[in-house]
């Protein structure tokens, strides 16, 4: 591969890209490009069947020359999948089913759009996807261009969008230290959790003299609710490959590993294909672009342990050992994988690299805030209308995310808090909604950027229960090596359970707080050091809820089963429908007179409440 060949491929595919990206119809003979989302989210709602049906229907109608059907990477609005994009209109169809296919194709034949499938806001259909409020404030860098590349020939489309230019530039024009300098100057920080400056990491590793060095891409995305890494790999695998090769050149490594969780089979499949394609084209392997730089890449699958996202545990896992964190120092930069200097970067971090090289550090530097540069991808989930993946410049406020991009809270419920940074992060309550998102502000609020998981909770969520959920997660996912994390988290969870069961005292609350601080301060690795954060931050902002549970035996959200009960009011007409539905036979009474619930037997499943047509059963 050389630059001419790269240019040749670009020229071959640029017209189709321009057709989709710019709506430039010159140079292509067809009229429409229908792209069906092939991300895991949409695939799980049968988008592949939709794509197959589209292809068949187009063929059956003899429209092959007018309508092209392709798979495409994740668009982000996963809640409304399967998503279908129509180019050059730039329209977006939501929740497309196989049954809709006939109508979609027929309408295209008549140069029309199917209005009912378009995204609606305030009752109005939005014809162009960029006009959706979900899109307006987004800025794509890490997820750049993935909506324009078709999955079938993703390498060529990637090249047409100037892919592998950065790698060419780096290996043929730049010295390793210059590459590191660009990354340093850009202000890029690790997107995996701690936010360590990427350039520094590279530089530490570059200066160590060693025969063998490694680049590792950490794709062991494990935070509940976070899936940006999966999406990036599925939709734009070559961005990661290119970045890893650039990193390899910069630090002097010729071997890279992608540590991918095995729960991401589709990402693994696409990445492997991308690696194979890149190798076949000479973009990986020996003497890349005719230089002395060689770089090969291998996927290593994780066995599903959250702790393997911690870099030392990850390396132990690649080495074939038990995924347990080891002490730092030595840091990976000096003694990493197999004892060799190693750079470990998160997927999203790497996804920024090629563009920084192409556009320069200055360009990247202008995006974001003084302390946090660039954009960040968030996985917006929970009680929010537009749940899915979003990418925003640093400094966007939480309010903008929730109310503008996220479209607010469903069913007119009241916002309560947003849990950021997954099980290591903390919650942010309403009074801090106007906080701009950057590393510093979030940590000042007792939360963290983490990998970018944002779980929105409304008034129906009990904050003690939320903390309990995360502690259950960390209890199970602790590697079990150090005492505070292994046993401390279990004991924290037990105290939380005591609180939600209404059996705790104020002394327990005191003990809970002390134990949380102990675990935070004394655990060996980042997992344990951050695992009490959900408790500490809910205690910080919602202490009254804890006290309510303890003193008043009350859960205001009505979530904690032991603290709530169902009662039958005078509205009851004695129809016995509820008692027939009750799975434990807790409801009894005489026909046509008021029924009663035996609280001893009741398991608070709520089935009676759902069954009653007269609203006679209420939760207290």
């Amino acid at each position, binding site marked *: 591969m050389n630059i001419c060949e790269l240019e040749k491929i670009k020229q071959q595919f640029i017209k189709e890209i321009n057709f989709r990206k710019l709506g430039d119809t010159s140079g292509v003979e067809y009229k429409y490009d229908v792209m069906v989302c092939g991300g895991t989210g949409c695939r799980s709602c049968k988008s592949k069947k939709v794509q197959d049906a589209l292809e068949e229907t187009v063929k059956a109608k003899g429209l092959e020359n007018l309508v092209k059907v392709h798979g495409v990477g994740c668009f982000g609005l996963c809640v409304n999948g399967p998503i279908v994009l129509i180019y050059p209109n730039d329209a977006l169809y939501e929740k497309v089913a196989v049954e809709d296919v006939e109508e979609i194709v027929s309408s295209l034949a008549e140069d029309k759009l199917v209005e009912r499938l378009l995204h609606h806001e305030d009752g109005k259909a939005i014809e162009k996807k960029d006009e959706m409020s979900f899109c307006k404030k987004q800025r794509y860098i890490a997820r750049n261009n993935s909506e324009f590349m078709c999955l079938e020939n993703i390498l060529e489309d990637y090249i047409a969008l100037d892919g592998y230019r950065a790698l060419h530039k780096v290996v043929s024009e730049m010295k390793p230290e210059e590459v590191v300098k660009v990354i340093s100057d850009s202000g890029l920080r690790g997107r995996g959790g701690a936010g360590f400056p990427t350039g520094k990491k590279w530089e530490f590793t570059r200066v160590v003299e060693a025969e063998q060095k490694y680049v590792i891409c950490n794709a062991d995305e494990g935070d509940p609710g976070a899936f940006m890494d999966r999406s990036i790999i599925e939709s734009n695998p070559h961005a990661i490959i290119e970045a890893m090769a650039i990193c390899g050149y910069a630090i002097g490594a010729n071997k890279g590993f992608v540590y991918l969780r095995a729960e991401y089979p589709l990402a693994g499949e696409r990445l492997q294909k991308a690696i194979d394609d890149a190798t076949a084209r000479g973009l990986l392997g020996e003497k890349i672009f005719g230089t002395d730089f060689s770089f090969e890449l291998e996927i290593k699958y994780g066995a599903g*342990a959250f*702790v393997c996202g911690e870099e030392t545990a990850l390396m132990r896992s690649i080495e074939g050992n*038990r995924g*347990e964190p*080891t*002490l730092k*120092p030595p840091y990976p930069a000096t003694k990493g994988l197999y004892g060799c200097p190693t750079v470990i970067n998160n997927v999203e971090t790497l996804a920024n690299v090629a563009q920084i090289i192409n556009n320069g550090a200055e360009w990247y530097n202008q995006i974001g805030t003084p302390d946090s540069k660039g954009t960040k991808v968030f996985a917006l989930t929970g009680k929010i209308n537009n749940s899915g993946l979003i990418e925003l410049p640093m400094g966007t406020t939480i309010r903008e995310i929730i109310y503008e991009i996220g479209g607010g809270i469903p069913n007119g419920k009241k916002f309560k808090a947003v849990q950021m940074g997954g099980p290591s992060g903390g919650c942010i309550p309403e009074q801090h909604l106007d906080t701009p998102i950057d590393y510093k502000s979030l940590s000042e609020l007792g939360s963290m950027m983490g990998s970018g998981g944002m779980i929105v909770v409304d008034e129906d969520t009990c904050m003690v229960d939320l903390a309990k959920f995360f502690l259950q997660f960390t*209890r*199970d*996912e*602790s*590697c*079990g*090596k*150090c*005492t*505070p994390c*292994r*046993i*401390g*988290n*279990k*004991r924290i969870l*037990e105290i939380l359970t005591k609180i939600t069961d209404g059996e705790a005292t104020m002394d327990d609350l005191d*003990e809970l707080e002390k*134990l949380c601080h*102990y675990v935070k*301060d*004394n*655990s*060996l690795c980042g997992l344990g050091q951050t695992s009490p954060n959900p408790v500490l931050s809910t205690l910080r902002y919602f202490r009254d809820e804890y006290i309510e549970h303890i003193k008043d035996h009350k859960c205001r959200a009505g979530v904690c089963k032991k603290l709530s009960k169902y009662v039958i009011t005078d509205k009851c007409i004695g129809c016995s429908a509820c008692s027939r539905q009750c799975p434990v036979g807790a409801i009894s009474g005489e026909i046509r007179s008021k029924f009663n619930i035996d609280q001893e037997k009741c398991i608070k499943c709520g089935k009676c409440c759902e069954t009653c047509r007269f609203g006679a059963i209420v939760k207290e």
Partner: protein
Amino acid sequence: MEIIVDGKKYIAENGETILQVARRNGIEIPTLCFLKGVNEPASCRVCVVEVEGVKNLCTACSTKVFDGMVVKTNTNKVIRARKNAIELLLSNHNQNCLSCPKNLQCQFQKLCNQFQCTNKFKGEMNEFAYDDTNHAIVRDESKCILCGKCVAVCAKRQGCSAIGKVGRGFETKVSTPFDRDMQHSACVGCGQCVLVCPTGALTQKNDTSKVMDILCEDDVVKIAQVAPAVRVSLGEAFGNEIGTFVEGKMVSALKELGFDFVFDVNTGADFTVVEEAGELLERLERKENLPLFTSCCPAWFNYCEKFYPEYANNMSTAKSPNEMLASLVRYYFEKQGKKVKIVSVMPCTAKKREILTHGVIDQCITTRELADLIKLKSINFNTLEDKKFDDPFGEATSSALIFGVTGGVTEAALRYAVFKTTGKKQGIVEEVRFSDGVKEVSVDLAGKKLNLAIVHGLTNAKAVMEEIKSGKRKYDFVEVMACPGGCVNGGGQIYVDYDKVDVEEVIKKRSASIYKVDGDCKFSGSEENKSVAKIYDELLGNDKHLIHDLLHYKRADKNFYE
């Protein structure tokens, strides 16, 4: 460089940890998971200290010193954190301490006491397994505090990895692969894990009550026979210095316990030397099954069976000194129409397997169990008068005594062989002593050059076996002792507090004690043992078949040890 610990200045070396500096200067910092050079995971979080300028507490075992570092080892914050860690461990620990085999010898119990721990963190405990299927080792998960020392020792020192951590989170435990029972694991019973376990999670099988049963029997001749290394450790259980030579008191104590005869396994060792040397010469002549592997270490024997079964025929067929002696003793008494019960006392846990295998030995106990029996009978060990081993199996040379140390078998064999081939007395063989793990020696024996290897620690054995297998090395004779340092550091020896003394030091002291007696005996060779000649002549009538029958293992096609 200089660092300040608790207000006092200390000199420290670059690269040292706080713990190293503290221990060197007698500053006490408690640890649970730390085992120098083998297990340094900093995971128990008990050794935390305050370092000025660092926000969180630091683990002393892993934090490297820097010039001007100010460390505080006993502030309230430190004490509280240590106490928290211990109390958390306690909350998931079986507290039946009074009936625990490690009661009063448990490091964890000591710390609970020191830190006045309470059951503050009450909560659910794990479901624990109890596994006593193995012939030597008993595993009680309910006592495990997951320090990881056993796992590290098994993998790093012994190359077996019979146990490892399984599961995750609160459910993490130390177990065998696929949670199989220990009998069906890679465990060879060496007991090195038992030596380092800070609690009662790993102990050896306790056969003291069975020995008591034998001692209560009438109409049998009750015989005790004691291995060389026992006598340099037993005294430690009664407050003596590590390595104190207590042969006389030990014999006395066994008599007090009620044994009719106390024989010296060293006598058996002298026979082993004769038989094994003969076997080596025979194999050299026939050029088959070389190298000859020593067979006296049962853990090594078991290791070879499990990991290198293709080398089964290389094992010496000469019985271990223990079984050789037992066979002779049994033959001797049964010839007189007497019933015997033989109890052997070994520094070893793996030896318990010899009870199961040939039925020559009735019970086999470790040095620790002997100490327990002595305590059980309220015998005041230190005031006992010295007694000698009984005849006719009481005479032994110092060549046999050094079997207790790595290199000893080779040295004894060489002394004998030199005498046999040249008629000259061979003194100390310096080259085979004090090895780091593997020693290679070339000797000229009657014009023939022999390549010998002396190995201790099964990780080293593994390396040597791989070299033999790949053809990189050719040996005529390989001595392997499974335990690092040989039997002096056997898995059945008296517990030592490794926070106070390194294992290397323990090996050195016990070996020195043995070598001193060897020197005092002017390095006597097995050929000098009059009893041996007498037994060959008078008891066995130099009957080759009988000798082979009694003193050699029968070789079956496979696994002839069973």
